[in-house]
């Protein structure tokens, strides 16, 4: 059955147009079609959060979204947050506080954390843990991830204060 649909997505500010079967999962679109390989495929069953991206202002697990559902959406992946020459504050904080070991979960962690801090710029440790509960890490035991996110929040808040 070939029933390709015309899809338009805005990914990290760039408009993308292509034909795809509606059943294509957003994570495959991003990784294989658009070569945004930051979001990872971990469990593929909406548990691990490695495929987390921001879609229309929501943190979503892109393994559980059909590309047809995303038609017209604005999507941000880890590639849209920072790059090797200019790291995002969260990327810098993960590096500084050893918020990763193998790095597999990190793009999902940081993409989710960026949304969390946007909604709650000054979270408590408990709020960080609750807000990050949809992302699994098998290396760190989470302690340094939480520390990194809290450090990034403090950094962003002091940058905001300095700008005022």
């Amino acid at each position, binding site marked *: 059955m070939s029933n390709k649909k015309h899809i338009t997505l805005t990914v990290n500010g760039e408009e993308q147009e292509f034909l795809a079967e509606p*059943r294509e999962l957003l994570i495959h679109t991003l990784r294989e079609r658009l070569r945004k390989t930051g979001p990872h495929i971990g469990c593929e069953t909406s548990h691990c*959060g490695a495929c987390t991206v921001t879609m229309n202002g929501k943190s979503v697990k892109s393994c559980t979204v059909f590309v047809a559902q995303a038609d017209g959406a604005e999507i941000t992946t880890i590639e849209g947050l920072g790059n090797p020459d200019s790291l995002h504050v969260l990327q810098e904080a993960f590096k500084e506080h050893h918020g990763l070991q193998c790095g597999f979960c990190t793009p999902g962690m940081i993409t989710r954390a960026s949304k969390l801090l946007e909604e709650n710029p000054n979270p408590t440790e408990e709020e960080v843990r609750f807000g990050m509960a949809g992302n699994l890490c098998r290396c760190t035991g989470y302690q340094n991830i939480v520390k990194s996110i809290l450090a990034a929040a403090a950094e962003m808040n002091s940058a905001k204060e300095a700008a005022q």
Partner: protein
Amino acid sequence: MIPAAFEYYRPKDLEGALSVLEEHGDDARVLAGGHSLIPMMKLRMAEVPHLIDLQDVDGLSGISIEGNTIRIGAMTTQHDIINDVQLASAAPIMREASLQIADPQVRYMGTVGGNVANGDPGNDMPGLMQCLDATFTLVGPEGEREVAARDFYEAAYMTDREDDEILTAVSFEAPSGGYAYEKQKRKIGDYATAAAAVLLTKEGGTCTAASIAMTNLSDTPVHSDAAGAALVGTSLDDAAVKAAVDAMLGDIDPTQDNRGPIEFKRHAAAVILRRAIENAWARA
């Protein structure tokens, strides 16, 4: 894991969605947040040749509170429920329960309509809706009808909804008194091993009304009239709470699965209900 191919529809109004349902019968399903249906399609346990995405259908999401009546559109997400200040004040049990569903990413997508209409015994909203004595609004080719949450569930994934109907809203009276939603789960994102929704009214130290519903302890949610009745007229002394827990245990019918054997689930149900009753009473 890629599901079988399907035709995709994104209608702008309810008529458009209903006409696809009417044409294709049980070969068509509506898609809300998709976090129950898409995993089932990926596992090929659900085959949906015609998928109707409700995201653009006007008027299906939003929370309205008029007087004492609360109406929540089917496409309202758990994230919306958690962040609605007025709802949190009018019916705090909705927020308490929603915070215990799945994880943050899933709650951005998961909807109240999908959660109640799917008929999965593991879902939290059906039991909560029975506790609140909510009413579901269903729209089909013949028009609109209402069904009590307590009459809606027939068996696992079997409900009173006809194949050509869409559940469009849930509504209930704002509860007064004490409330609690308690859930035992193996890990974040899991369904309940046992969960309890409790609403209690206290007048001068006596319990004058009680509503108790249990989740994932039978093939449907269990609203235990007997458990509520055991509390009414008492001061919630130990004997009354024990009688309520015993009455609840008489109404549930758990099965053994990867969350444990039957005896363990009965034990967890008793612990969770006792905890919910104590919390609700302290807040009453």
